């Protein structure tokens, strides 16, 4: 019986252990997360002919933006409770068009559907553009921000004489 349990454990933990030993894991950081539509992650035949295990359209699944050195991945969980530990750095690898994240505490890998892949430099440029747009719209709402940006007010606290 013990041998059987040992064999099962070995079988379950083998892919992760092998991957760790071979050193095929990449490192990355999760920078964004929100609950999105599960259907976005499950398309094609699986949705059309999916059995009861397929999530309903009302269920929401976690969607993460994971940054590696060269690529930004947008990945989607298979169910609402499929979470990634949000540590500063996580280990992951690409496997059969999916992204497998190593979860230390659970001693296994969690698999996510890849929704988008963007070259890191392009992702950074997009983020920069978005931040600039946000600053401009913020400045339009509040004139004091414009004054601050123009160097008219260096301090956070402003004194206005009426």
């Amino acid at each position, binding site marked *: 019986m013990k041998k059987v349990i040992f064999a099962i454990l070995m079988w379950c933990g083998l892919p992760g252990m092998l991957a760790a030993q071979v050193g095929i894991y990449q490192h990355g950081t*999760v*920078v*964004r*997360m*929100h609950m999105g539509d599960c259907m976005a992650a499950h398309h094609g035949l699986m949705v059309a002919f999916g059995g009861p295990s397929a999530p309903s359209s009302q269920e929401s699944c976690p969607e993460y933006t994971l940054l590696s050195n060269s690529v930004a991945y947008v990945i989607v969980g298979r169910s609402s409770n499929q*979470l990634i*530990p*949000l*540590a*500063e750095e996580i280990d992951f690898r690409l496997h059969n068009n999916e992204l497998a994240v190593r*979860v*230390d*505490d*659970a001693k296994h890998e969690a698999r996510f559907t890849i929704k988008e892949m963007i070259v890191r430099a392009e992702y950074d440029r997009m983020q920069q553009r978005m*931040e600039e747009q*946000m*600053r401009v*719209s*913020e400045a339009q*709402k*509040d004139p*004091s*921000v414009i004054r601050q940006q123009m160097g008219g007010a260096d301090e*956070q*606290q*402003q*004194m*206005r*004489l*009426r």
Partner: protein
Amino acid sequence: MLTRFNRTLSKIVGLAMVCCYPTLGLAAGPSEPAEVVTFRSSVNEVRLVFFAKDDHNHPVAELQKNDFAVIDDERVIRDFRSFNRSSMMKLDIVVLIDSSESVLPQFKKEMGQVLQLISHGPWSEGDSVSVVAFSGMEARVVCEKVCDSALSGDHTKYWTTGGATPLFDAVELATKLIEKHRRPDVWPVLVIFSDGDDTISNSTFKDALHSVRAVAAQVYAIDLGRPGLPTNGTATLQNLAYESGGRWIRISDGASTVFNSVIDDLHSAHVVTYKLPESVSEFHQVQILPTRNLKLQFRCRRGYYSTNGTQKEEGL
């Protein structure tokens, strides 16, 4: 030489007088209205009170700063300005008691015990407790901040039992009290004893929820409704508690036991602060998730309002 020096000096003094004249004139002029000086400051820090539990549903006492991350408006935040136990903060508790006919006759004795607890309660120095009762057409303040003497005698005089239940108006009144007492180092908490069935308020549930979010209060909703009968009132109380990061509890164990468990819960909380992230939306949704141990569970308010990079409410 001296005369030349005197002439130069008198020129300098004269020039100085001319330069200062407008200012002096403004300051001394009796016909000018008094100047109003307005100081404006940007608050760019979010303060989040939260609770951590392990897989056995026990509070996590030894929680570390790097055990969790905050998701604020979809951004993952790990860089915190501070992280403490909530015991560092003072409590501003407003207890709301439904004294309407549908509830009070059943719980009058128990409410008396709760009021005794409040008056002799386990409060730390600097904590304050106010009591608001609501029934009929109105919500009224029974005592504000200093409740010891007000609650030590006969409580029945506070109960004007009758008819309707203005719960949402009572919540609005309580948030106004909190707003009045507001200080950055004070944590506002509402403890509501009610069946949740509002029947007469001018305010709506949306108004009440907005006010609770605006003052960043945590709601502990003690449900006085009958167990086993799911009602709209129960759903209302559950929503208020859930959205604010508080708890919904049935009164089955007795009012005083429940009240004590609320106090214990408050003492197990943590507080984290971080820089307000830039966002296009005024309402920031927040969530706390583990960084390593996925069995840890976190509870906090669901969101807060911010405008132009300035947090409207100081985000407790």
